[in-house]
């Protein structure tokens, strides 16, 4: 239930910032109508795929996760750039491996799989229950994932005690 209000507030702020016309009643009315339409569509989806996971805790703790992820993305970018520019010195050894997932809720697993795909050098191929199939460009990239640092951080986001 609180997600409905969060969605309305978020969409309204998003619309206001994107449009920039804050004093024309016609355009403001159209904005209200589009926010209402999107909220209605989202509610229709939620009726079938209820959002009962720990979404709020994840949303509130995002600021602690993104700076770390950004540093990881820069590191991974440098690793892939080395493979692109110096293929003799840093050869690519593509590999596939199934990894166990630490995060439990659906939304946390989605965040985890998306973060893996977002960092260059590793791509999530499949997510099945508590296992994910990861394709990595180099063995170092896979080793970084296997230490489970990213999984632990996402697990902390969802709040393991609740």
């Amino acid at each position: 239930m609180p997600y409905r209000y969060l969605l309305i507030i978020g969409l309204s702020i998003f619309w206001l910032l994107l449009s920039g016309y804050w004093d024309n009643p016609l355009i403001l009315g159209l904005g209200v109508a589009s926010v209402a339409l999107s909220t209605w569509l989202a509610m229709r989806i939620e009726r079938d795929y209820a959002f009962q996971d720990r979404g709020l805790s994840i949303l509130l703790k995002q600021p602690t996760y993104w700076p770390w992820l950004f540093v990881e993305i820069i590191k991974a970018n440098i690793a892939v750039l080395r493979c692109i520019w110096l293929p003799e010195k840093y050869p690519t050894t593509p590999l596939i491996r199934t990894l166990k997932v630490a995060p439990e809720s659906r939304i946390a697993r989605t965040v985890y799989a998306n973060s893996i795909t977002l960092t260059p050098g590793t791509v999530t191929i499949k997510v099945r229950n508590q296992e994910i199939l990861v394709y990595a460009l180099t063995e170092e990239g896979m080793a970084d994932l296997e230490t489970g640092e990213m999984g632990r951080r996402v697990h902390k986001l969802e709040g393991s005690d609740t």
Partner: protein
Amino acid sequence: MEIIIDGLSWICLLIGCGLGLSGAIGIFRFKEFYTRMHAASVTDTLCVFFIAAGMILQSGFNLVSVKLIFVVALLWLTGPVASHALVRAAYQTGLKPKLGITRKQSSLRGKSST
């Protein structure tokens, strides 16, 4: 002061262009679909970030820069979904990736390291 901001924004734009170029070169240099995916993800992430940062520095902080931040955030949120969909579709239809290490070896190594 203006010169410093201008210089910073130029550095950001040049780094972004360089990253975009390396992504494009990587797409041609890598041999098959799955590895090319990774070259493209360099362009997806840091290249977008640096170009947007350069443009924000050029425009100053106003509504335009807020929109640029939205562009980066939306690209970073939807990019992985698109690449995951592509890779999964390729894997599901049976395109086998050429592996440097076979799956059996890699799972064995995975066990020994933990």
